[in-house]
Structures are given as C-alpha cells and as structure tokens.
C-alpha cells in the first residue's frame, strides 16, 4: 500500500500538490505513481517562467521502460524547478513527497484548489483503478 499524506491535495493523474503559503503550490508525483513507474531514470523539468493552464503538460518522468507526462494540477506560473532531479532522478522514487518534488507554481487564486482530491478521495481513486 502506497503512502498518501493527509495534508496534501491530489489529482486523478497521480500528481500531488502542497500549498506553501497562499500563492505557492509545490507539485510532484505520488508514491503510487512512482511505484507504478518503478526506477525513474530521467526527469524533464519545465522552463522557469512558463505559464501553465490546469491540466497542461508540465514535465516528463521516464523509467527504464515507460515515459509518463506530468500535468499541472492547477493553473499558474512555474517559479522554481527541482534541478537536483537532473542528476538524481531516483529521488522521485525514494522521496516522492519530499526531495523528489518536481516544480513550484505561483497560482493566481485558490478557486482551482477545490477541484483537487483529498487523501481519502485519492486513496479511493487508486483502489478503483486496480
């Protein structure tokens, strides 16, 4: 059973989001997503300054066998990317909710946050996908 921290928000595409203050959203992929992908060998990060619409492709995570697109959980501007992943992509496997974060978005408002799943909803979604 994968870890699903209570304090995070989730998408059905297996991204997580953590608000850092009112306007900064830290984003990554869930423990379940990294388990499905297995050994992550490459992360393609978005450009800093890029304006993303909710659901727009933000990054790419690759394992030995598979390529997986990562989407923006909410709309916003990319203000920071985790460049450590360029040399240590395996952090997404070992610490998906911590050192393995992928990008930070500056959001315009909190409205879109209400559309995201809470931990219980996401757990049910993972279960239903099996």
């Amino acid at each position: 059973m994968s870890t699903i921290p209570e304090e995070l928000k989730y998408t059905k595409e297996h991204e997580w989001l953590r608000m850092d203050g009112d306007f900064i959203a830290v984003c990554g992929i869930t423990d379940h997503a990294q388990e499905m992908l297995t050994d992550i060998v490459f992360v393609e990060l978005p450009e800093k300054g890029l304006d993303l619409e909710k659901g727009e492709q933000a990054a790419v995570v690759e394992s030995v066998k598979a390529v997986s697109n990562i989407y923006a959980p909410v709309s916003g501007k990319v203000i920071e990317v985790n460049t450590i992943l360029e040399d240590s992509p395996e952090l997404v496997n070992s610490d998906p909710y911590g050192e393995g974060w992928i990008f930070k978005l500056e959001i315009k408002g909190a409205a879109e946050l209400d559309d995201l799943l809470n931990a219980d909803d996401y757990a049910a979604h993972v279960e239903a996908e099996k």
Partner: protein
Amino acid sequence: MKRTPLYEEHVKLGARMVDFAGWDLPVMYTSIIDEHAATRTAAGLFDVSHMGEILVKGAQAKTLLGRLIPTSMDRLIPGHCMYSCLCNERGGVVDDIFIFMIGEGDYYIVVNAATAEKDLAWINGHNETSAAVIDVSAETAKIDLQGPRAREIAARVLDDDTPAGLARFQFTHVTYGSSPMMVSHSGYTGEHGYEFFLPNANAVKLWTGILDAGRDLGLKPAGLGARDSLRLEAAYSLYGHEITDDISPIEAGIGWFVNSADDYIGKEILVAHKAGGAGRETVCIEIPGRGVPREGCAVYSGDDRLGTMTSAGFSPTLRKGIGLALVRRGTAQAGMDVQVEIRGARIPARVVRRPFYKFHD
C-alpha cells in the same frame, strides 16, 4: 492469455505481469535496474518458456535448413549451436533463430514466440524434402541462467558437472528430474550463462532449485524488462525492431552470418547487400548528456535525417541513453556527432562502436 509452467512462481514472487505476444509474462519482479545489475554482477534467472522450439529431423534435414538460412550448415558440428535467420525472397528476415545440431539429421531450432506460427508455416511451406518438421514448443520450458556466477550456481543444481566444461555455443544433454534436459552455454544478455530446455513438468523444480542455490551468491529472478535492457547494451537484435520482414541481416549489422554457398532463399539480395549494395545500416548511438532516446526517434546530422532508432532506452550499466538506429548507409561513422529527436527537441548524440557492452565471459 497463454501461461508458462512457471506462472504461479512469478505470481508468488510478486512479479508485475504483462502481455507479451499473447503470453502472460513477468516484466519485472522488484526493479528492472536491480535485476539488470544482478545479471551483470552475479546472476539473473529468466523464464523464456514462451519461446518456440522446432525439431527438423531426417536424412534431408540439413538440405532443408540449407535452403532456409544464409549461414553455411557446414559450420555446425554436433553438440554446437549457431545464430542465423530465416530469410524471405526480398532478403528480409522471417525470424532470427538459433540452430542446435544434436547429430546428423537431427536439428533443434529455437524461434521467437511472436513469430513461432509464422516460422512453422514458412518452414513447412518451403519443405520440398523428406525432412520432418515437429513443433515441440507447447511441451518445452526454457529457463536462462545468465551472469558471472552462472557456472557456480549451475554446478550446485546439477548432479552432472559437464555444463561447466562447455565452450560458448556448445551444448549437452543431462538428466534432470529423471528426464533429459538440454543445457547450452549461450544466452541473450552479453554475459556468460546457460540456457536450459526441459519438459514443462520439471520447470518449477529447476526454477526453484536454481533460485535457492544462487540466492547467497546474489542471483535474482529477472523479468523481460531486464532481458531487453541487457540485450540492448550487448547490441543484440530483437525481431520486430532491428530485423523485420523488410530489413536484411546485413542492414541490421548481423551480416557476419551470411556466408552460405547453398542456394538459399533471398541469396541474390543478401549477396548484393554483403558486397556493399545495402541501402541502410544499423549503428549504435549514445547520448552523452541528458535524454533517453526511444524506438521511433529520428536521427539527424544537421538538417539531414539519417534514419530512425529501432530500439533505445536507458542503459543501467552505462547510466545514459543508448540505442540502435537504422540509417542510410555510410552516413554515420563511429565517433560522429549526430542529433536524436526526443519530443520535438534535437538532443546531441554520438555514433559509437558496436556493442555498448562487450561480451563478458
């Protein structure tokens, strides 16, 4: 979906199963990278029972095979196996195969699972001899033990220590679980190792026996994911990728086995290709920086599109992106800088000597 006799063992080991050519097979148990590394440093154990086995027997068996393959049948002596392919009239490849010569008029052919039926139809369709062609795929299990500790592990499992003395591409028969088992010093990983062919009924016994015997030496069960990454590093061809009905063995870079004087199917084209008439060739490409190439990626030199990646991915041993590419002949020499198009971006890459990983005996 078809299941091998080891299906329950894979489930017990927590394998992630995938549909491969209609077979339910393990793509990995824990991690492709770990299974790959175990095979390179200790040993990996692979269930490849889905592969096909065809017997060709009788006084005219050699004549039939001589008509089907571009490799001289005289190069094969009893107790040895060789790599070759079935060629079509256009010089393309029906399948790549391993031929084991058990004795005069007694050959054992190993073929790919996805093409087994096509191969059988091809062989039968071109059989104008009295040779018998018998498909024994359904009753045969195949287990590969590969890696530097394979010899040691095999010696623990088999009462018979003859396999340890086998030269590369030599095979023998031993008794295992009161049935005959064929043991060949060969494989598909770039490592020293063995391929075991045995009746389905004994597959679980051998599989669990080898896993138990090799555990303390670092042996791991390894799935199809590692099998593919290992063969890619060794730059071995995979049917449907480097070789197809429309790519000749010379274009695929395995033209060294085109040497038969017999009148085999596709001879005219293959001889012309061998003499420099092939339009394409297969080269090894690596990405020194960041980026993982995939099959289908275009390869460029400036604005000139040279060709396409036929197999590509991340090399766990070299820790970088590697791949094989089919390009216009003469456009890509080892050492040359090229670009691989990944998701619309041209990524710097380099043509390197074949293989990426040199055979390790």
